[in-house]
């Protein structure tokens, strides 16, 4: 079977998976043509099938963008069900009633979100814990979760948040190299500066089809960069919605909801992609 490889490298958090499922980390022995900046590489066995492979990835990215919108809609719909529950204030704590019907789509993801919200809410009231939270918000809070699964869930979400922030930071400050490799040979490389300037390096005498393969690869890279930035926008908006609902949280703790939002959005996207794979 022909080997088509779409890899990205140069990110500080290279092991962070592409939420759109298009690009993967390179093998350890796989080196970029140029060491400077971020590299997005399409390594294709031949030019004839290469164009189809790139166009298929472009479709895959488009589906991923639709999943992002769906995940955003699911988060908004879920937020509608989040309500402060004053009945639980007996022991001086606040918590959330959070309806998650069993037959609902994305039940595990919504349940995880509920667990995180419950964990935050439980942090809200006892004076000792509030003081701890205000003193060291980020690193006090995960350890203060009552349940181990909540703590681990938050740690994972926090890790994804940091990796994602780093990705966005690098995307908006480093150049991106789009490399097209055919049968092990680089035929074209386009360096895209963060402010939009382009430099393209071609082997002379390429066929029209080879040129089209590289042009489409550059389009895929450009679309992938935009998609990651759109994800940042959706995550921040989703976190804003969570923050709006979480008004009973201690001062400063609302910012902890950004990792909760990123976890929900990416997990729903993963679930949609897995579902799509089972339909093939």
């Amino acid at each position, binding site marked *: 079977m022909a080997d088509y490889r779409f890899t990205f490298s140069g990110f500080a958090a290279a092991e962070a998976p592409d939420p759109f499922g298009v690009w993967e980390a390179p093998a350890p022995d796989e080196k970029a043509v140029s060491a400077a900046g971020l590299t997005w590489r399409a390594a294709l066995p031949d030019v004839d099938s290469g164009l189809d492979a790139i166009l298929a990835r472009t479709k895959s990215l488009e589906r991923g963008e639709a999943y992002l919108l769906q995940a955003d809609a699911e988060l908004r719909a879920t937020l509608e069900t989040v309500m402060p529950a004053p009945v639980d204030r007996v022991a001086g704590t606040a918590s959330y009633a959070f309806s998650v019907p069993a037959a609902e789509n994305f039940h595990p993801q919504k349940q995880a979100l509920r667990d995180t919200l419950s964990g935050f809410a439980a942090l809200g009231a006892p004076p000792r814990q509030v003081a701890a939270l205000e003193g060291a918000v980020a690193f006090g809070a995960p350890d203060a979760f009552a349940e181990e699964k909540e703590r681990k869930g938050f740690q994972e979400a926090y890790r994804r948040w940091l990796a994602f922030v780093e990705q966005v930071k690098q995307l908006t400050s480093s150049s991106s190299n789009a490399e097209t490799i055919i049968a092990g040979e680089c035929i074209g490389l386009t360096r895209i500066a963060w402010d939009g300037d382009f430099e393209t390096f071609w082997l002379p005498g390429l066929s029209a089809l080879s040129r089209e393969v590289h042009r489409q690869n550059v389009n895929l890279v*450009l679309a992938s960069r935009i998609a990651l930035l759109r994800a940042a926008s959706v995550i921040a908006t989703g976190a804003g919605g969570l923050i709006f609902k979480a008004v009973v949280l201690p001062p400063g703790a609302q910012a902890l909801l950004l990792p909760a939002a990123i976890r929900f959005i990416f997990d729903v996207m993963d679930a949609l992609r897995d579902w799509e794979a089972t339909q093939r």
Partner: protein
Amino acid sequence: MPGDNVSTDKPKDLKASVQKFASDLAAKVENFVTDISELEVRTYTITDGQFATVLDDPNKKNDKTLSGAGVQLRAYTRIAFDSDTIVCLPVNNSGQIDGAVWDMHQAAVNQALQSRAAMLRTIGDAAASALDALKKSR
């Protein structure tokens, strides 16, 4: 790896990280608007096997235009903010426009124009969303 020390090892603050994320994006939009006063697109041909030598030459890392053994600038376009445009056309040995290089260059110019507009719009949206989330968290 980011997040390895998520529990208690380092005195980092997630809220500070969120604030930095939002303010960095906002600053990026500002810089972007300043820096996009002109767009430059260069198309080169390069000798087989010379990519790394040419692209990573430490002596040329500040050069706006690469030149020398193994690399040749074939076409150049600069579009200023007020749409003033400079175009250097590629010609072959007989003085005719090299159609293949010109096609590649035009395609790159179109990609660059569309990409820059999309980046500006998307970074602006992300910064606005992050700043809005921060405002709600205060």
